[in-house]
C-alpha cells in the first residue's frame, strides 16, 4: 500500500441508540478487517454505552415502543445469528482499534473513569484528538 495513502477510519459515536452503536462497530470492524486503522470517539449519548454494563442498554432509534421494538429486533438478530455488541467491541480492540472517550461529556454528565470500561479505552480526550485523527482519515462518520 502506498505510504502516503490515507488509511484510517474515524467515527464519532454520538448516539447511544442500540442500532446506531451496531452501525458504528460494524463499520469500524469492517475497516480494521480490510486493513485500515480505526478509532471510535464516544461522546454524549454514545459515551453512556461505555459505562460498565451499559453497552447494549440503548433504545432503538426508531420504533422502540418502550422497549417492545428493541425486544423484537433483538429476537430477529438472534435468529439471524448476529454477533453481540460485546463481541464486536472485543474484536475491535483485539484488531487494534482505538476507543476514545470524550472528557467534556464526562464532566457534563458527571461520569467518572471508574464508571467506564477503562480497560478498553485508549484515551480520554477532546475535539483536538478527533480532528487530528480525522485529518488523516479516508473515512470519517458522525453516528
Amino acid at each position, binding site marked *: 500500500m502506498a505510504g502516503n495513502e490515507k488509511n484510517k477510519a474515524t467515527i464519532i459515536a454520538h448516539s447511544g441508540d442500540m442500532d446506531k452503536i451496531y452501525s458504528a462497530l460494524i463499520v469500524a*470492524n*469492517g475497516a480494521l478487517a480490510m*486493513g485500515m486503522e480505526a478509532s471510535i470517539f464516544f461522546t454524549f449519548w454514545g459515551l453512556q454505552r461505555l459505562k460498565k454494563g451499559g453497552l447494549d442498554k440503548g433504545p432503538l432509534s426508531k420504533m422502540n415502543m418502550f422497549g417492545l421494538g428493541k425486544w423484537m429486533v433483538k429476537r430477529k438478530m438472534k435468529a439471524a445469528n448476529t454477533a453481540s455488541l460485546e463481541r464486536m467491541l472485543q*474484536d475491535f480492540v483485539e484488531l487494534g482499534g482505538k476507543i476514545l472517550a470524550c472528557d467534556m461529556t464526562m464532566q457534563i454528565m458527571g461520569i467518572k473513569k471508574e464508571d467506564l470500561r477503562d480497560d478498553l479505552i485508549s484515551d480520554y480526550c477532546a475535539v483536538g484528538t478527533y480532528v487530528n485523527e480525522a485529518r488523516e482519515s479516508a473515512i470519517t462518520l458522525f453516528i
Partner: protein
Amino acid sequence: MAEIKVDCKGETCPVPLVETRKALRKAEPGDIVEVIGTHPASKKEIPMAVKALGLELLELTEEGDTWRIRIRK
C-alpha cells in the same frame, strides 16, 4: 508453515471478515489461512480485504451454499 482453519458457517456480517482478519494477524508470513462460510457477501468481500492487505488469494471454491477461501500470508 502452518495451516489455520477458520469456520464461519452460519455467521453473518461482519463476523467472517473480522474472523479472517484476526486469523491473518496471528498467522506468520507463509502460513495459509482457510476460511469456510455461508454468508454470501463475505465471499466477495474477503477477497477484497485480501487484496487491500496485499496478500495472496490462493483459492475460492463453492459447494452449495458453502464457500471456502484460501489465503497465503
